[in-house]
Structures are given as structure tokens and as C-alpha cells.
């Protein structure tokens, strides 16, 4: 990487971090107590994020973004700050729209993990089906895949075109059931290149969640380290006890692995959305999420188990995100099946190609 590219990344990271500290849930106790509201997010905060241009961040620079890699790094920072907005989904959805030549959207967007059903109707199209656990489905436009006669299409539905039944994940983030039965105008549908299959959205989402897990995992580790340095028992900081140091070291190894996994997923996303690296990354990030969250609660003890303390805003997200866009078991089974089919003699070749 050129040092100029590194400088740009550092500038983006610094300015985005400042914005996310203000709007995330980790630092501001008051924000944590704000009810979700109708949209499932605070419209004022979302406006500031839009004004910063972040909703288009994954697009290439000539289209107003900072590139896919930087976009995913922004997702990682969003994870680190427990950002309560559909920013990651909007960035990814806009990337998909631009990739197929549709108009990116000004407003909040979300993704349907699995393809929906598409029929021809009159001179146009009709979209039907259901998508569950849609992030902020209740208040966003939605981007989905659907197949028709062996061709995959990307469809952009506006908020209001589909019915939603609200729900939440373990972190209280909106995860809604969406039911589709609507017409699709020609400016809202485009064929997807042959290289992109029905897994395109779930792969993109898995890469996003891996990045968010990496960010949140690191933030949790820092919280636990800080606590261990400040909390005193038996006449010393609890971080002075080797047992606690071992716990922190365990967390750190998983946080490092999660970051490496996220980087692998991000590179794959930016380079053709290859399934195997993203599968491996999501498996590893998911496992790391579980260990980090559990061990952090052990270290931070009772105070970390209060609503008032920010730890839960991150640990609950870690627990939620590891299951979204494919959990560890699903991706591990997919990866394992592919490697088994290639056979033991080919295993090393397969691994080095990932």
C-alpha cells in the first residue's frame, strides 16, 4: 500500500471516528436511553451521517464514495461505536445499485438476505415473497435479488412498497419481517452479471458483519483492559492478577483474529465477492465474537452487567451479528463441504488458493 493511500485511510478513520463517537451508543449514556422511535433510528443523527456523505462511502471515488475497502473500514468503525443506524446496510445497498447501473439512493436502505420471487406482470414486473430479520426493514428502502428464467436481477423497492412486522435482535436493533407483493418499475430493476449468484447479498452482508464484529471486538477488549487497570481489589488493580491477564490475552488473540478475518473478507468483497474467504472470515469472526463477549463480561463483572455501563451495547451486538448473514455453523458447513469434495490430497492447494 502506498503511503498516500495509508494517509487517506487514516484521515477517513479519524474523521469518521469523531462522528461515530458522537452518534454511537458507547460513549453517550443518554443516547442509549432514547427510544427507537418509528423509524428505528434517530432521524437527526441519520441526517448528519448522510450529510457527511457516508451513505455513498462504498462507491468509487468518481461516484462520490471512498471505495469499497474504505467503506468496509467505516463499517468496522460503526461496529466499534455501536452505531444505531442502518449505515452499513445503506452503504452496501448503494454499492449493489451502482454495480448494476441503478441509481443509488439518498435515503436509508436495507438488504434482503435471500432472493425473492419475481414474475412478469403486464409490461412490467411483480415482486413477491418474504424476507425475515431485515435490518431496519420498517423504515428503509430495500434492495433484493430475485431470479427470473435463469437470470438474476437486482430490485430496489421503496419504503412503503412492502409490509413490515417489526422485530429486534438481541441488541435491540430493528430486525423486521418484510412481505412483498408489489409492482416494480423498469427504473428499479436491473440484471445482475453472470458472475454474481443468489449468494451475492448474503456474502456482502457476511463481510459487513465480519467488519462490524472486528470493530466491536476491539472496543470490548479496550473496555475490559481499562476496567482491569482501574478496578482495585485486594489492594491492587485486578489487571495485576495473572488470571485476569490471561483472560485479557485470550480476548486479544480473538480480537486480532477477528480483525484479520475482517480484512480477509473486505479484500474478497472488493475483489469479486469470493465465497470461501468470506465464509472463513465469518466463521472466525463469529467464534471470536462469542469468546470476546463472554470473557469481557467475566472481567468487567457486576458493573459490566448493568444497563448503565456501555459494555452490553457492544456484547449484545457481537452476539447478534455473529448469527446474521449466515452463522458460524452455516458457513463452516459450506466451506467444509467444498473442501471435502476437493479431497484431502488437494486440501493444501485449496487452502493456499483462498
Amino acid at each position, binding site marked *: 500500500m502506498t503511503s498516500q493511500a495509508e494517509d487517506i485511510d487514516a484521515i477517513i478513520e479519524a474523521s469518521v471516528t469523531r462522528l461515530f463517537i458522537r452518534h454511537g451508543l458507547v460513549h453517550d449514556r443518554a443516547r442509549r436511553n432514547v427510544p427507537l422511535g418509528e423509524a428505528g433510528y434517530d432521524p437527526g443523527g441519520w441526517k448528519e451521517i448522510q450529510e457527511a456523505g457516508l451513505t455513498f462511502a462504498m462507491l468509487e471515488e468518481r461516484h462520490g464514495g471512498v471505495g469499497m475497502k474504505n467503506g468496509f473500514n467505516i463499517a468496522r468503525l460503526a461496529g466499534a461505536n455501536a452505531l444505531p443506524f442502518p449505515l452499513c446496510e445503506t452503504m452496501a445497498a448503494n454499492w449493489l445499485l451502482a454495480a448494476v447501473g441503478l441509481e443509488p439512493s439518498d435515503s436509508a436502505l436495507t438488504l434482503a438476505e435471500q432472493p425473492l420471487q419475481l414474475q412478469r406482470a403486464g409490461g412490467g414486473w411483480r415482486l413477491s415473497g418474504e424476507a425475515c430479520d431485515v435490518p431496519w426493514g420498517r423504515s428503509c428502502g430495500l434492495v433484493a435479488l430475485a431470479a427470473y428464467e435463469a437470470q438474476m436481477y437486482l430490485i430496489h423497492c421503496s419504503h412503503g412498497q412492502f409490509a413490515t412486522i417489526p422485530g429486534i435482535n438481541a441488541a435491540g436493533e430493528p430486525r423486521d419481517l418484510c412481505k412483498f407483493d408489489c409492482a416494480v418499475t423498469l427504473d428499479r430493476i436491473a440484471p445482475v452479471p453472470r458472475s454474481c449468484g443468489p449468494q451475492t447479498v448474503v456474502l456482502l452482508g457476511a463481510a459487513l458483519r465480519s467488519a462490524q464484529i472486528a470493530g466491536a471486538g476491539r472496543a470490548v477488549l479496550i473496555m475490559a483492559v481499562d476496567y482491569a487497570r482501574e478496578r482495585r481489589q485486594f489492594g491492587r488493580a485486578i489487571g495485576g492478577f495473572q488470571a485476569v491477564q490471561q483472560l485479557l490475552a485470550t480476548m486479544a488473540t480473538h480480537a486480532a483474529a477477528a480483525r*484479520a478475518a475482517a480484512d480477509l473478507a473486505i479484500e474478497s468483497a472488493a475483489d469479486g465477492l469470493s465465497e470461501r474467504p468470506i465464509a472463513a472470515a465469518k466463521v472466525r469472526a463469529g467464534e471470536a465474537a462469542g469468546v470476546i463477549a463472554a470473557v469481557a463480561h467475566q472481567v468487567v463483572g457486576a458493573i459490566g452487567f448493568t444497563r448503565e455501563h456501555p459494555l452490553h451495547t457492544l456484547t449484545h451486538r457481537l452476539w447478534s451479528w455473529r448469527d446474521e448473514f449466515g452463522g458460524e455453523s452455516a458457513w463452516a458447513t459450506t466451506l467444509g463441504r467444498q473442501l471435502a469434495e476437493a479431497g*484431502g490430497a488437494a486440501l493444501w492447494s485449496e487452502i493456499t488458493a483462498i
Partner: protein
Amino acid sequence: MVDPLSFLTPPKSAVAETLRQEIRAFLEDELAHRSPLERAHSWNGADPQFSRRLGARGWIGMTWPKRYGGAERSALERYVVIEELLAAGAPVAAHWIADRQSGPTLLRFGTQRQCLDILPRVARGECYFCIGMSEPDVGSDLAAVKTRAVHAEGGYRVSGTKLWTTNGHLAHYMILLARTDAAAAERHAGLSQFVIDLSTPGISIKPIYVPSGEHHFNEVIFDDVFVPADTLLGTEGDGWQQVMSELALERSGPERFLSSFTLFAELVRVCGSQPSERAALAIGRLASHLIILRRMSRSVAGIRHCRRQWSRMPVQSSNRKSRRLRVASSVRAVHPAATHTMRPCWPTPSCMLPPSRCGVALGRFFAASSRAAWDCAKGEYSDRFGIIRSG
């Protein structure tokens, strides 16, 4: 300020990938009749003839200067060679330690004469080393070494016992850590390293067998052994810094997660092309750990390739250093090393990895004196936690 938990993207190298195909072809030929059980010995399997043939191809001491028998190839190329050797279960044990750490330690601290005398033979796969650190009473607490090297006319007299000496029975040399100054004020001072010719009179090597009956480990006893002054490696009294530097070379490499690769490949073979769901899940989980560990390991190789962080530098920081240097050196010393000793394992009921020397070191790093590093790394939390942002 580098995030101590992040690993730079491993660099791509077309040259290294071409080399990969070359070594694969070599190994297919060499190891055609090697059974999975033999391959599973991995870097515990010793075959001096194989080491010589590998040396003849220029694949030992690859990154060393040509004047010392090396090939001046990049760390990335070396990495490709060693990971292919390990994945194939090649019998690399005889030369492994010499190539990985003894040779580089000589390059770092040795005299030109020591290098000229020894390194070309190592690079040819003819000269093998073992490690002289652990003792019966000295494992994790390396500073407690008891082996003494007292001054004598023209050299030193060495007495003590080294233990768990891998392939000491095959090695020609040992890099020995011994105490040269018993009166040193601080336990990390007064240590020195020596390049000991194991054929020196007074050294006895006794085998230690592991439960499988295999012989890798040894007990090496020094009974008032005279060694000439020119066996001193580096500077007398600098043994601690030198041995810490040597130990860093033992970390992060692919052998840390490829030792069991043959077993993994056999598992995949045995599970067949249509495995059960549980088998597929197990394979996928193992693969995911392997892939991520490999990425981190290759990243460290990439750093070595750029020759940024691994030149002569004392690993243990002293109080005299400025805060920023202390931060930088402790981050460099601990971060890639400690995080790479984690190996894939099934979670125990409490989701804890077994304690390890490096795990605790990393924990101490985080929990104790390296506040500055964390301040830098978490600058964005300064407002919330009231920690002063560091420069």
C-alpha cells in the same frame, strides 16, 4: 500509531508463487513414497540426506547473504518454501532450527569468522543446530538459567545441564545461554550466549523419549567443559537481549499451525467427498482457523520482507528509553509474537485457551505498563474515559 491488533495485508509476490510451483514439484518427487504417518511427524522428522538435497537447491538459508552461503532471496519466498515443506510433511527437522533461528542469530550477533565458518555449511544442509535454553529448573522463567560459564585461560569453563534439547543428538552446534556473571545485580544481566561445538570433550547427550517412543528431546550435560573465547556469541553480558531476539524468530512462523496439517488432510480424506453435516462443519471450522492464522503469519513474513521491525533491536525495553520508544518497542516485541502463539483448538467449557508464556506476556503488556500504547490505540475513547491522548 499502528493498531497492535491489526496485521498488514500480506504482500503478493509473483516470484514467490512461481517458486511455490517449483518446490511442490520437488516435493511430489521426493516424498512420493512417504506415508501419512511419516508425513505427520512434520518438522520432527529428521533426514540429513533430505536436508542436503534441499540445501543443494538453495532452499536453506534462503534470505542470508550470498557470501555466507545464502541466496539473498526474500522473506516471502522463504515463507512459501517452508510452508510447502510443512504442509507436505517433509522431513526437515535436522536443519530446521539452524535455518529458522540459529543462523539468523549468528548473522545478527556473530563475528564474520563465525558466520563464514558455520553458515555455508548450514545452508548446504550439512550442519545442524540445537537450542540451549531450557534446563531442569528453567522453562518459562528463562532468566533463572543456572548453567555457568566462568572465565578461564583462553576461554570459559561451562557446567550445567540443558533439557528438552530437540535433536541435540543430531546437532553439530548448540547456541547456549549461560550465566557468565553470577554477581550481576539484576537477573536479566550477566547472561551470555555461546556457539558450542557439541563434539567438545565433556559434553554428554542423553536421550529423552516421548510416550510414543520417539526420540527428539535430549538432556545435554556440561561437565566443566572448556570452550575457547571465540565461542562467545555477541557480547558478554548481553545474553538476555540476544536470547529474546532469538526467541522472536521462533514465533509467528507456519510451523506454529501446520504441525498437524497432515492430520487435517487425512481427516478430510477419511470423511470422503460427501461428508456428514457434522464432519463438514468440523472441517470448515478447522479450515477457517488455519486460513486466518496463515494470513497473520504471512503478514509477519511480509513485515520481515520489508525489513522494518526485525533488525538489531533489544526486545526488552528499559526505563531509560523515552516513552514513545518504549511503546514502539514493546508493541513490536509483543504484538505479532504473542498473538501468533494461539493455535486452533476446540473451546473448553469455559472458552479459555490453556495458559501460555506468551499469553501472559501479552496480558501483562495490556494490563500493566504499556498504557501509552493503549492510549494511542484507543485515542478515540479519550473523551469518554478521560485518558490523555498520546502524541
